[in-house]
């Protein structure tokens, strides 16, 4: 959960850094790109969290 919040803050920071002209160019298609990337990263973060919990459990089972 904390990772998700951090990620959201970070992504907004990154987008705030990028110059508005880039996001406004080519009919604002980069806004769509940013949206798709945000969803992609969100899903990857979710999978990473499960993966991490899984590894912890595996380690416990081995011990």
């Amino acid at each position: 959960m904390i990772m998700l919040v951090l990620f959201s803050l970070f992504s907004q920071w990154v987008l705030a850094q990028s110059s508005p002209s880039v996001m406004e160019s080519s009919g604002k298609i980069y806004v769509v790109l940013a949206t798709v990337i945000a969803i992609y990263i969100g899903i990857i973060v979710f999978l990473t969290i499960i993966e991490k919990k899984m590894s912890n459990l595996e380690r416990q089972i081995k011990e």
Partner: protein
Amino acid sequence: MKRHWWKILGALLIAYALIAGLLIPLNTGILDIHPDNALLGEKINVQINAYNAHFDEANEIQVWLKLDSVHFLNGTDIKVQSNTEMTANFDLPSIGLANNRTSQSATLIVDNEIDGYALLPGALQISANKDSLALKSTAVWSNQLGQLHKNEKLTFPYRNILYETIRNLFYHVPLWFAMLIIFFISMIYSILYLRSKEKRHDHAAYALTQVGILYGILGLITGAIWAKWTWGAWWSFDVKQNMSAVAMLIYLAYMVLRSSFEDYEREARISSVYNIFAFTTLIPLLFVIPRLYDSLHPGNGGNPGFGGEDLDHTMRMVFYPAIIGFTLLGIWLANLSYRYLKLKETWIDRD
């Protein structure tokens, strides 16, 4: 393979939403014209900037000004500069504004056989004042429009301000729909748990809520990104933004509640009760709040919506599969989390 068909379906639908949603071009639209105001009776030369147009390749370009349903004016001397730029002359008549109005806006219509026709409502502000009285024009309005071409190609509608971001409809809005479906299934599992007291039902409810929260947060982030470059601010206190933020608060509270028990049976039972209570209060939240705010702010600050005619046939063809795709992907993600919870449970209960 038989057990996994829905995962394949989900992946295919999302791939379809990505490919079709990004590759189908936008319809032709008019970005702006210059000048955007004129006097009655004036002869003007207008510069027209279009989006996704093919003026260079087109042969039968027509330009019209439409004041109302019986006042049309054909543009002459059309000079094409590039695929998206051209100029046209308009010879405005001396009369024509409705009921002694001093100013009225006209719609610009651009038509050619490749792109079909495109409109820009409110393109030209036509005024009548003492300067315009001095201009004596012999031009007259025509009472009907010439034959327009219709674009038969597969395109998404063009909207000013939105431009290409109209495609976000396939990636941002389905998250919200899928979130609601997932929270609903989660509530069903909570009811099942209270009836059966089987741990697997509670695990399913918990896992689904996790994915629902993921989708909710992603929905807020993608919405903020979209809002920043269309409405101008990350957060503009729009009804739907507030609603989804409150929904997130309700379900984040569910996570906090789950972590404040020592005894598993009690945790499962009480958080199931809360889950049912929370989803039911989500319903007035979805139906009451928008109605209340709409009556307070008619027009809703001019933000573009996607109801009715805005959601055209081509968009539906991508939008609905995207909803199903995101829901199935969500259930897949929840399934992973569910299997982890079950494994952990068997490991803890092993002796």
